[in-house]
């Protein structure tokens, strides 16, 4: 058994997310978005990052607004329940960042190719679309067997993939449940992997269910205990989505000035994860807690 990979967010981000690196975040889509890790990236004011993710909800908008980003490779960037991501709009419209336009399937295909260790993979989507115009990593090709026209998608291998898991052991073996999005591909394709987790548990909890392990621990570089680390996105088994926070963020991001105030209060002035929780307040945490429980039926891995 290898050495413990437990560390804290400042250390994990400063050592594994250098300026200019390509970072995959929010790969489960609407759930388990690693907001705590993203906020640490902002606090460290990383520069020139490439953000990779299917639909980032508001996390990408926040990191872009903080000036950390030069390029986005995504299918959708905005605020899922309200629409536009205002920082994203400002940054793209002013030419401060470039966008590689993907669809969910082209991004899934790119990360699958990355995970499989092949330089490209074909898909039948996006033919005739203008995604070709704003994504140089798409090319039309012809199937060598059928002659069918296809879209070839270049593989994506993030420098670092950051995920938020429900529970993880100190060696990087994490349990994730719920919709998987492209988490598994992004972890396997990532050159390094940071796992933030609601709970740090004993290896015996994780290896009691090896099928639930999201990616083999030997490929994980750092493990960070980050309760409420996905807030305001939902964490199955832990808390519901905080819709109010997304509505508040829409208003707080409409202008740059308002966004600066939001950033100071919710990111820069928050030094540790506990401060974030107290900022939310007991009532709000209670309100987001699960009211109905449904526990998985056990399975036996005996011999």
């Amino acid at each position, binding site marked *: 058994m290898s050495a413990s990979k437990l560390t804290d967010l400042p250390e994990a981000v400063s050592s594994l997310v250098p300026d200019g690196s390509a970072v995959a975040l929010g790969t489960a889509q609407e759930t388990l978005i690693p907001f705590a890790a993203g906020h640490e990236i902002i606090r460290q004011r990383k520069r020139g990052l490439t953000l990779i993710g299917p639909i980032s909800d508001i996390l990408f908008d926040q990191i872009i607004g903080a000036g950390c980003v030069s390029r986005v490779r995504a299918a*959708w960037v905005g605020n899922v329940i309200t629409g536009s991501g205002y920082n994203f709009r400002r940054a793209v419209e002013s030419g401060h960042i470039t966008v590689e336009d993907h669809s969910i399937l082209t991004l*899934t295909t790119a990360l699958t190719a990355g995970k499989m260790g092949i330089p490209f993979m074909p898909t039948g989507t996006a033919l005739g679309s203008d995604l070709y115009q704003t994504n140089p990593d798409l090319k039309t090709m012809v199937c060598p067997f059928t002659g069918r026209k296809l879209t070839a998608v270049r593989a994506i291998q993030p420098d670092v993939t950051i995920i938020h898991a429900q529970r993880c052991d100190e060696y990087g073996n994490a349990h994730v449940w719920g919709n998987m999005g492209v988490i*598994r591909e992004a972890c396997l394709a990532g050159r390094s992997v940071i796992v933030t987790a609601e709970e740090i548990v004993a290896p015996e909890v994780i290896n009691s269910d090896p099928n639930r392990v999201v990616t083999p621990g030997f490929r994980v570089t750092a493990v960070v205990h980050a309760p409420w680390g996905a807030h305001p996105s939902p964490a199955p088994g832990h808390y519901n*989505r905080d819709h109010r926070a997304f509505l508040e963020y829409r208003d707080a991001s409409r202008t740059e000035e308002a966004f600066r105030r939001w950033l100071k209060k919710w990111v820069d002035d928050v030094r540790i994860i506990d401060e974030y929780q107290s900022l939310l307040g007991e009532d709000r945490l209670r309100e987001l807690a699960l009211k109905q429980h449904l526990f998985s039926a056990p399975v036996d891995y005996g011999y």
Partner: protein
Amino acid sequence: MKNGQEPPFAYTPAELMVTAAAREIADGEVVFVGMRLPLLGFLLAKSTHAPNAVGIYELGIIRDLPAPAPILTMGDLPNLFRAQCCTDSADVMGLLQQGLVDASFIGGAQLDRFGNLNTSYIGPVSEMQTRLPGSGGACDLASLSRRHIIIMAHQKRRFVERVDYITSPGYGTGAGWRQAVGLPRGGPSTVITTLGILRFHPSTREMLLASLHPGVTLAEVRENTAWPLQTADRLESTPPPIRDELEVLRRFDPGGFWTGRSAERH
């Protein structure tokens, strides 16, 4: 109707649109459910005339039971509760790409007479006026489902002769275009707007007005469409939501988040 006050049952434009969307789903169909209004449309169909419909969500969820509580996103925890399957996006996208999805729902900012949809850039990319959120799964649903249904606010700036950018392919330049570019199947079957319901000419693939919502005139629709809009041979009137449908809608959207105001907000 616009202010949601008339008898027999008061309903909002959004409630009418969601109801019309739900009615596009036949029982037993496999439906790829998009963000926002379609979430509600599927729940409505599933709870009324299409109990055996299967819902597929791009983030890796497949459901054959309605969610037990209201949801605002497909990732809200009630949408995972007793799901048929939680898996990788690759798996559900594979089902779509195999041609196993009967119908899908997408929304957009700009739509043209051949059903091409733009949710990416307003104006030429080089000197864009507005950057929109992008495709999400919309390009995939428009490319690969057997048919897709578009839900939009009906305004002249949105209903244009030719979209600035094709995010989600419709019929391109008309008949034969999808086959020519290599798309394996499908195309838009229906466009549900704040003013009416539009379908596509079987041979020319041009969008035609098929139904007017209650209280809306043909002139009003044409004023809000940037090309000379033709009508179908029989121009119908959209049947308003019945009480059962409204009850279901309000159970799944108690705060009226999606249906309380005009769909344009979303």
